[in-house]
């Protein structure tokens, strides 16, 4: 049965996680994602055998996730920008130990304590590693409440598939907005068994260790090589939405809530006789470089727009390989870009 519900974005993430069999949640309150921790408390505390812990800190939360993932649990934590910074050491450990988990970042304005309004300033942190050492997260960027739900489920599956943490990179606007959302059927029996590597009882087998270090440099390099191979294999998961790419005057590249705002700008532009194409990366890591490269030649001008000072623009430039003139427009600090602003910027570039 498919239920159609009116839900707040943050709550849709929670329901999607539970729908996907997540029974372990560890988190610490922070605006603008607190509805998610509250939702997990309300739901998981009523499910037999499930665990909800409001941890003493973000550090504790991510290390509880580390333990729960090591024991084979389908586990999630969530936070917003400053809290995600605190989790970085733990995320690095979990990645080195090759454990699956889902981390939700409902971004707010930064740096520092920043603001509590929506932003996209954590793109570098999310896609380039974030903590110490050579590693990547799988990073998914929803742009609707429905996609928050769908990509949360996908994040669990990808995380299990690659035994690598996956991040949902949303923002305060997406987390707070209410929209109808459907939860499609999900077969919990399809979740891969973790019996071959998870910690637990060792009757009839050798004792196992999960060790995120090696004092031998050569052996540690082998771990790095194994991770690197995983990131190469992962590239095939790259996804990008391509909108209105039939003879565009200009192509806008945007992700998450900003891409949605661009869609409104596309409609407005049509009235002025301007055709705006949109490339919307759905996976930020792996970055859909191939789709970007195949499309950038279709217009003379490319505009990357983000709620940051221009972080994804570097990945777009790399993907375009100098084949297009790339401009950037962004707002920061929690200021949400308006469709009018985007249209004005487009007109300026087309002059």
């Amino acid at each position, binding site marked *: 049965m498919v239920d159609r519900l009116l839900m707040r974005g943050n709550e849709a993430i929670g329901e999607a996680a539970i729908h996907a069999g997540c029974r*372990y949640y560890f988190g610490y309150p922070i605006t603008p994602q607190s509805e998610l921790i509250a939702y997990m408390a309300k739901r998981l505390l009523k499910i037999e055998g499930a665990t909800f812990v409001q941890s003493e800190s973000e550090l*504790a939360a991510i290390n509880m996730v*580390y333990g*729960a993932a090591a024991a084979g649990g389908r586990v999630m934590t969530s936070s917003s920008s400053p809290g995600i910074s605190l989790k970085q050491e733990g995320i690095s450990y979990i990645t080195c130990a090759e454990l699956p988990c889902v981390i939700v970042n409902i971004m707010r304005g930064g740096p520092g304590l920043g603001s509590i309004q929506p932003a996209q300033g954590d793109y570098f942190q999310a896609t380039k590693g974030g903590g110490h050492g050579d590693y990547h997260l799988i990073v998914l960027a929803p742009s609707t409440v429905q996609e928050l739900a769908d990509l949360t489920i996908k994040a669990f599956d990808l995380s299990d598939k690659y035994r690598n943490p996956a991040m949902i990179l949303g923002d305060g606007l997406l987390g707070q907005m209410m929209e109808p959302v459907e939860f499609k059927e999900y077969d919990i029996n399809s979740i891969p068994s973790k019996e071959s590597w998870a*910690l637990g009882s060792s009757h009839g087998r050798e*004792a196992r260790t999960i060790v995120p270090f090696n004092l031998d440099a050569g052996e540690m390099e082998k771990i790095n090589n194994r991770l690197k191979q995983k990131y190469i294999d992962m590239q095939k998961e790259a996804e990008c939405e391509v909108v209105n790419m039939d003879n565009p005057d200009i192509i806008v590249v945007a992700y998450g809530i900003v891409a949605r705002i661009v869609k409104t700008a596309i409609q407005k532009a049509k009235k002025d006789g301007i055709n705006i194409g949109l490339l919307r990366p759905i996976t930020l890591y792996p970055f859909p470089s191939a789709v970007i490269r195949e499309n950038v030649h279709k217009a003379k001008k490319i505009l990357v727009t983000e709620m940051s000072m221009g972080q994804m623009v570097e990945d777009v430039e790399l993907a375009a390989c100098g084949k297009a003139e790339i401009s950037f427009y962004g707002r920061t600090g929690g200021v949400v870009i308006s469709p009018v602003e985007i249209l004005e910027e487009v007109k300026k570039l087309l002059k």
Partner: protein
Amino acid sequence: MMKKVFEKPKSLTDVPFTYCPGCHHGIIHRLVAEALDDLGIAKDTIGVAPVGCAVLAYLFFDCDIIVAAHGRAPATATGLKRVKPDNIVFTYQGDGDLASIGTAEIVHAANRSEKITVIFVNNAVYGMTGGQMAPTTLEGQITQTSPYGRDPKTMGMPIRVCELLSTLNSPGYIARVALTKPAYIVKAKKAIKKAFQFQIDGKGFSLVEVLSTCPTNWGLSPKESNEWLEQKMIPYYPLGEFKEVF
């Protein structure tokens, strides 16, 4: 016929310990392994090793083990235990790990009365990094980072973990033991076994603080280290059971 009266605990692997001569880690490992053997729980036990000298504990204990981030072992243990409530979960932590960088984690794991057992090794110094001041370093004690002696005016007084955690209004078993005499070792073994039994019985959080030596960083011989522990540490860190509430 020959009768075997003493052997290596089954819960220890054949890997030789890497600890310095005179250090108590070896004895503590053995006592933990004996407790796992006696209680018949080794095959259902998950250990959490710390950052510090005992980071290599995963080589020595013959049970499932994860190495945690510095100070976060009680959080990692919480995650493990919540997913596998039928398993026995223990952390093995030093004083820098537990009483400095991991203070929040130990206080809150104890306060939630997580059903885990903590083996807390207090040797009043950071061992692995070469002998810096620990939160448990005694007043006036000279270390690399208290070269003129720990001055309480600017460095605080040594933290008594058992006493601190015993103030929490939640179930728990908390004891402090030492290993400098055979009689102490017998008591230590009893306390460690009791702590694991507390968890087996589902009563809640248990912690045994073991006063330990660090001859290398104290700059003393193993014998002098034992004397120093008895003369300096035990008066400040009294032995005994501090809490048994369930």
